[in-house]
């Protein structure tokens, strides 16, 4: 059956590019290394050969300038997809992103607009360290005029890229390096969906766990383990961080009465803060316990394996946080934790133990 087709996240993303380049002559891809032998972790491999060097473009090391150039191209009717191999490099271009791309439509009252996709990859592991592993999603999500998407599944990798390219406004597409190898069902049939909305990724009624991007994997693993131990976790994958789908979370919290937010970025001043604030304001009486959050600690990522080992929260940390919040019996928590053994898989390379369904 066609709908049973399995793709990796990277393959699904590459397929999105093939579809967009085939369908829409306005689309071009651009970024350092896009047409090179590594093809941005194989997500753009072969595309230059198929669609030509004009539409699948390399670029100089000029992040801010090239962002402005893509804005200009978008104003002139193109649909550029600009890529950076690390989110950290896009920090050189925040002037053009925040001052220009995000504001052009608004400040000219709709006379012009910027259909631009900026694709950023959050690095992790193998010594990415302080300047190659920043997960600053809220940095972009706080800017009015931008849309921010964080696909966590192969299906969404394709769907949200196509939605972002079809969208008339600047979209920051943030993916996580550790998602690239994840495989899941991606039907061949393509429907272009609007760029909005979260998704209940797993149904439950004991607690709502809101997450996005890579941490969906760890949350899924934690939820699966807790299910065996008799705790039904409802998992919400935000998918789109701006505009934030508060109604979906509120509906879930109204059912479950408990909220944990698991952030792929820092725990403070980030996405988790906004989710907790928005939900608490909107559904205060539905909350039966204090909401909680789990995220990266408030310091940069150190490089040495011994130092980064505890930097990233994992499924076990999610289980522990849930157990604490729901005041689960020790035995239940232990049972769930015992199901999460990663064996001796190194902590700084992607864990391939969980592969969906998402």
């Amino acid at each position, binding site marked *: 059956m066609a709908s049973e087709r399995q793709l990796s996240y990277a393959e699904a993303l590459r397929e999105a590019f093939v579809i967009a380049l085939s369908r829409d002559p306005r689309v*071009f891809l651009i970024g350092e290394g896009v047409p090179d032998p590594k093809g941005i972790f194989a997500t753009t491999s072969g595309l230059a050969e198929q669609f030509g060097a*004009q*539409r699948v473009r390399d*670029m*100089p090391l*000029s992040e*801010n*300038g*090239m*962002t*402005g*150039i*893509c*804005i*200009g*191209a*978008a*104003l*002139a*009717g*193109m649909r550029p997809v600009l890529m950076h191999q690390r989110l950290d490099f896009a920090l050189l271009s925040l*002037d*053009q992103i925040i*001052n*220009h791309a995000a504001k*052009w*439509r*608004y*400040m*000219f*009252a*709709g*006379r*012009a*607009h910027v259909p631009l996709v900026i694709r950023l990859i959050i690095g992790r592991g193998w010594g990415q360290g302080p300047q190659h592993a920043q997960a600053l999603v809220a940095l972009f999500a706080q800017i*009015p*005029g931008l*849309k921010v998407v964080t696909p966590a599944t192969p299906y969404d990798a394709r769907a949200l890229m196509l939605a972002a390219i079809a*969208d*008339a*406004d600047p979209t920051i597409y943030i993916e996580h390096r550790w998602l690239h190898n994840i495989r899941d069902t991606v039907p061949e049939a393509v429907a272009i969906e609007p760029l909005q909305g979260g998704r209940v990724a797993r149904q439950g009624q004991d607690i709502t766990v809101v997450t996005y991007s890579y941490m969906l994997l760890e949350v899924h693993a934690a939820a699966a383990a807790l299910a065996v131990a008799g705790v039904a976790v409802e998992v919400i994958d935000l998918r789109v961080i701006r505009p934030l789908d508060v109604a979906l979370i509120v509906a879930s919290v109204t059912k479950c009465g408990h909220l944990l937010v698991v952030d792929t970025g820092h725990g403070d001043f980030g996405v988790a803060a906004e989710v907790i604030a928005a939900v608490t304001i909107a559904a205060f009486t539905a909350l039966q316990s204090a909401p909680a959050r789990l995220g990266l600690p408030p310091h940069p990522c150190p490089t040495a394996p011994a130092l980064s080992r505890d930097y990233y929260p994992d499924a076990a940390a999610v289980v522990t946080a849930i157990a604490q919040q729901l005041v689960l019996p020790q035995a239940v928590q232990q049972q769930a934790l015992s199901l999460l053994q990663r064996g001796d898989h190194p902590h700084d390379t992607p864990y391939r133990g969980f592969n969906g369904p998402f």
Partner: protein
Amino acid sequence: MLLQQYRSLYRIRRVEEVIAAHYREQQMRCPVHLSIGQEAVAVGVCTQLHREDALFSGHRAHAHYLAKGGDLQALFAELYGKATGCCSGRGGSMHLIDLAVGFWGATPIVAGTVPLAVGVALAWQLQGRSGVSAVFIGDGAMEEGVVHESLNYAAQQQLAVLFICENNGYAVYTRLAGRQPPRQIHALAAAHGLTVAVADGNDVELVSQHSAAAVAAMRQGGGPQFLELTTHRWLEHCGPDDDDHLGYRQPGELAAWRERCPLALAAERLQVRDAVSEATLVQLRQQVEDEIAAALEAAQNAPEPDGCERLEHLYGE
């Protein structure tokens, strides 16, 4: 040709003088950066651009907008924060647009629109469309890294971008020598691989000639071009007043530049060289005055935008 250019010079001068005069009434509630003294750059360059060519600018954009053919009433209205403003009141003086005449946008983050102009040229190259994309910058903008990134890419891709550097010797109160080493701005652009020229920016005919050559080269695929045009701003950096008493200019500097008024230069040539009669000039000026008076009145009488409109146009659809 020079007569048309003189008309444009005079019109821009008078529009800015009218803005300055009415600014004190506090009804134009936004910062204004006037180009009085620098008009020949705008006019000389823009007479060589087609309506379909793209133009971008920065904070000091009134002259560029008008020279490219931007709607006068929409300019005044924008300064008055009216619904009929060229940005429907969203922008004020520092944000101008008139897509109908190829004025793609002016915004006040210094050098911010420079890569956008390059991007338009890239799009047109990809689309197989001819046309020139131009951007005005000041001497100060040359200090922003993004300008160098833009020059590099325009040169590497051989894009049809015209960079016009209006070198008025100052950024706010700071002299060029306080910000850049003693070397030529256009030489820097040349080192990036662009074809460059430098000229007296107060002589509209000279500016025209250099612009014509640059634009012609680009229309024949000649790659990006850079013009440095030297000139001087007569009034304060921001606002309607003379500020020479602050003493940040060299002694006598402003007076010398006023001697070299671009309007006076053009008028003298028209009369002496081209034997245009005083009566012709008087009539031309009167037409301009009438147009300005009508546009100003229309803008003043235009409605304010509805406060609720501020929620619109954040995203499309």
